[in-house]
C-alpha cells in the first residue's frame, strides 16, 4: 500500500490532510458567525466586512501570503506578540500553512453557509422565541439544524480549497519537506527537478482522488441531511 508513494510523498499528502483538516475545523465556528452576521444583522461596516472576507478570493494569492507574512511573521504586527506572549510561531510551520489555507478557503465557506442561512425562514426563529427559547437556543435548535446541509457543503468546499492552496502557503511558510511542504508544493517542487514528472504525476492522481472523494461525500451527506430535516 505504502510502496507506491515515497516517504517524502506520503509526508506531503499527510501534511496536506492535516493542514486542511485543522484549517477547516478551526475556521468553521468563525465562518458560521460571520455568515450569520452578514445574512441577518445590520451593522456599521457590514460591507467592509463582506469585502474583507471575500478579498482572498480576488487578490493574487501571493499578495495574501505576503500580507500574512507581514502580519503573522515572527516580526509581523501580530506575530511578534504571539511569539512574545504565547510562544506561538506560525511562519514556516505547518500551523502557518493551516492559517494560510483557512484564510484562502474562508470566502467559499462563508458563502455556502450564508446562502443556507438566508434560506431559513426567520419566522420559524420568531416562533421559537414566542415559545420561550432565548436567542442562542433558537440558533442551536432551529437555525443550526436547518442550515446543516449548507454548513457541511461549506466545510467540505473549504477543505478541498485548503488541499489545493499553493500561492499564499508557499509565500507565507515556504516549501520545507516534512514541515510545510503540502501536496501542491510537493508537486511544484518535483516539477522543478529534472525527471520528477513521474512523482508529480502520482501526486496529481492523489490530489484528484481526494478532491473527488470530498465532493461526492459532501453531496451525499448534504442530501441525506436535507432529506432528514425537510420532514416527510
Amino acid at each position, binding site marked *: 500500500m505504502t510502496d507506491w508513494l515515497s516517504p517524502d510523498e506520503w509526508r506531503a499528502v499527510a501534511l496536506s490532510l492535516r493542514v486542511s483538516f485543522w484549517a477547516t475545523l478551526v475556521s468553521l465556528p468563525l465562518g458560521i458567525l460571520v455568515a450569520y452576521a452578514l445574512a441577518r444583522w445590520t451593522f456599521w461596516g457590514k460591507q467592509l466586512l463582506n469585502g474583507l472576507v471575500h478579498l482572498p478570493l480576488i487578490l493574487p494569492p501571493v499578495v495574501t501570503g505576503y500580507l500574512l507574512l507581514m502580519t503573522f511573521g515572527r516580526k509581523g504586527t501580530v506575530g511578534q506578540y504571539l511569539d512574545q506572549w504565547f510562544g506561538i510561531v506560525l511562519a514556516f510551520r505547518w500551523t502557518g500553512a493551516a492559517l494560510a489555507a483557512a484564510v484562502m478557503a474562508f470566502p467559499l465557506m462563508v458563502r455556502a453557509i450564508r446562502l443556507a442561512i438566508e434560506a431559513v*425562514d426567520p*419566522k*420559524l426563529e*420568531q*416562533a*421559537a*422565541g*414566542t*415559545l*420561550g*427559547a*432565548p*436567542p442562542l*437556543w*433558537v440558533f442551536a*435548535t*432551529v437555525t443550526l*439544524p*436547518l442550515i446543516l446541509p449548507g454548513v457541511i457543503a461549506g466545510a467540505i468546499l473549504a477543505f478541498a480549497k485548503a488541499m489545493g492552496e499553493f500561492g499564499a502557503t508557499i509565500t507565507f511558510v515556504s516549501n520545507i519537506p516534512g514541515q510545510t511542504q503540502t501536496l501542491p508544493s510537493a508537486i511544484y517542487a518535483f516539477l522543478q527537478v529534472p525527471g520528477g514528472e513521474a512523482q508529480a504525476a502520482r501526486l496529481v492522481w492523489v490530489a484528484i482522488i481526494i478532491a473527488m472523494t470530498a465532493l461526492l461525500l459532501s453531496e451525499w451527506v448534504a442530501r441525506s441531511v436535507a432529506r*432528514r*430535516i*425537510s*420532514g*416527510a
Partner: protein
Amino acid sequence: MSLHVRLRHQFAGFALEVAFDAPSGVTALFGRSGSGKSTIINAVAGLLRPDQGQIRADGVTLLDTDAGVNLPPHRRRVGYVFQDSRLFPHLTVRQNLLYGQWFAPKGPQVSLARIVDMLGIGPLLSRRPGSLSGGERQRVAIGRAILSSPRLLALDEPLAALDDARKAEILPYLERLRDDLHLPILYVSHAMAEVARLASTVVLIEAGKVAAIGPVAQMLSDPANAPGLGLREVGAVLTTVVMAHDADGLTRLDCAAGPLWLPRVTSPLGASLRVRILAQDVMLATTRPEGISALNILPATVRDIRMGEGPGALVRLDVGGEAMLARVTRRSAEALGLAPGRAVFAVLKAVSVAQENVGAAR
C-alpha cells in the same frame, strides 16, 4: 387574569392608537384586513415594538415604554399561534409539541397526553410537519403554544389559511380549549362566524382605533356596530339548549323565546349551543303568519330601529330577553309601522342557519 393594552404606533400613512382592557375568556380583535389588529397582537407578543405604549398581562408588565420596560418575546410567555402554523420542519410532531417545555417555568403544567387528547393529534406524534394537512398542522401549532405554559394564548387568524371543511374541523377543538383550559385567549379574526362562536368579549377595530368593545352577545346585536361588522355578516347570537333530534333530520333547540328547529346538529341532548342568526335571514310580521313554509316563528318586541343610509333598516328585537337582529327595507319598516315597543313575530327559515353558525356555548 386581565389584559391591559395601550398602544400608539405610527406606520407610513397609518396610525394605530388603541387602548382596551380585556377580561378573562376569549377576547376577539375583530376588524377588516389592515385595520391594525395583527399589529396589536404582535405588540403583545413582543414581535413588534410600538412607538409608545403599555401592555400588562396577568399583572405582569410586558411593555412600558415610559418606564423603559420591554420584555423580549421569549420572556413574555405569550403562546402565539400563527396563521401559517410555523412548525419546525426538522422536528417530529412530538418534538414540536414539547419544544416550549424546555423553557416553561417549573410547576404544575398541562400534560402532553391531555393536550394530545384534546386536540386529537395522537396518531400524528411521530410524523413530521411536512406530511401533515393544513388542519392537522394548525392543531399541532395550537398544542405547541399551549404546552409552552403561556400566561396568554394569542391566535392570529389561525383559520384564515384553511378551507371551510378544515375550519369546521378545528373550531370544535378551539371551543373545547376555551371551556376546559381557562387560559386567556386573544383571538384575531376578520371572520364573523368564528368570533360569534368563540369570543366572550369583542373588540371592534377600525382604521387603527377601537370602535367598540363589549360582551359578544351585546356587541353583535348592537345596530350601531353593523357598519364595522359588515352588513351581510351582522347577526345576533342566541343561547339555546338541544332538546330533541327529530326523525326527519331536524334538531329542536330551545331559546328563551321558544323552540327553534334547525338542520341536524351533532351535539348531544342537553348541550348548550350558541346560534348566530344573520339579520338578513330574519323576516318580520305584525301578525303570526300562517300557511308559511318557514318553521321558526318567535314572538318578539321591537327594541330599536336603525335606519341605514341606503334602502335598509336594522331592527333590534327582544326575544325572550335576548337580542336578535332583523334586516329589512325601510319601506317595509314604515309600511308595518315598526317602532320601539311594537310586538312582532320574527320568522326564520330552518335551512338558513349554516352549520358554521352553530357552536358550543360555555
